């Protein structure tokens, strides 16, 4: 069984109020390392056996039409070992 991970992040130019809220909560808890925080989504998709090129192409397509909104988000598809 293989796991394919799709990470979806807001495009850099899109305001991320949730990430900003996390960034401002960190120093209140004594964590001072963060210059900025962006929050995104992670999808874990399992397939039987090693993923084929055709399956990966389909997952790319699904990431574009459903998992992300290309107007505001970017996505990255990768196979997790």
């Amino acid at each position: 069984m293989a796991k394919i991970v799709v990470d979806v992040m807001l495009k850099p130019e899109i305001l991320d109020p949730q990430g900003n809220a996390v960034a401002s909560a960190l120093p209140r808890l004594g964590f001072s390392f963060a210059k900025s925080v962006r929050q995104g989504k992670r999808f874990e998709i399992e397939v039987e056996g090693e993923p084929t090129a055709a399956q990966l192409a389909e997952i790319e397509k699904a990431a574009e039409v459903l998992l992300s909104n290309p107007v505001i988000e970017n996505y990255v598809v990768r196979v997790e070992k």
Partner: protein
Amino acid sequence: MRVGVITFPGTLDDRDAARAVVAGGSEAVSLWHADADLKNVDAVILPGGFSYGDYLRCGAISRFAPVMQLVIEAAGKGMPVLGICNGFQVLCESHLLPGALTRNSDLHFLCRDQEIEIVNNSTPWTSSYKAGEKIVIPLKNGEGSFQCDDKTLAELEGEGRIIARYVGQNPNGSRNLIAGITNARGNVVGLMPHPEHAIDELTGPSAQGLGFFTSILNVMVK
């Protein structure tokens, strides 16, 4: 005039939208998300709510509902379509309207009476208003911040496709105070605040939302 009102699982303003349609002088026709049938309506309203639980992104799953395939096709042929709040989000996800609605800039779910200005009164949903008319109707949403790239924003501004703007302080971080927009053809309108909750003074802050539902009759008169 037969105006369809779509119910998705999680829609909650369909009753008020149907009531507003009737108050505006048209016949309200209930449409179900899973039916590939528009029941010969002349126009369609996508009401507010939390369709499919707002899972993934607001409106992202509703876009693929069987009834939406027919709405997309009919909108392409010029049928008037109005998306309110969650309905606006569905229209953006369906690419019938540009841009996207994102989390309010202060992260709060807002529920309040909001003043807006009707900027474009040439659409089938706004023709009962005077250009520049200011009205007060409820605004209630968590993801109401209209976002798009600079090129799209310039197009919307340049082509007069912003139909309504917030008056006063920006409530949610929307670009250029955008409360509602229309497509290039002018038949598809998306609006964040809720005119269907302001059709009489007993149940709303005003009766000033009724104009969206009387406007649609002018289409037939033409």
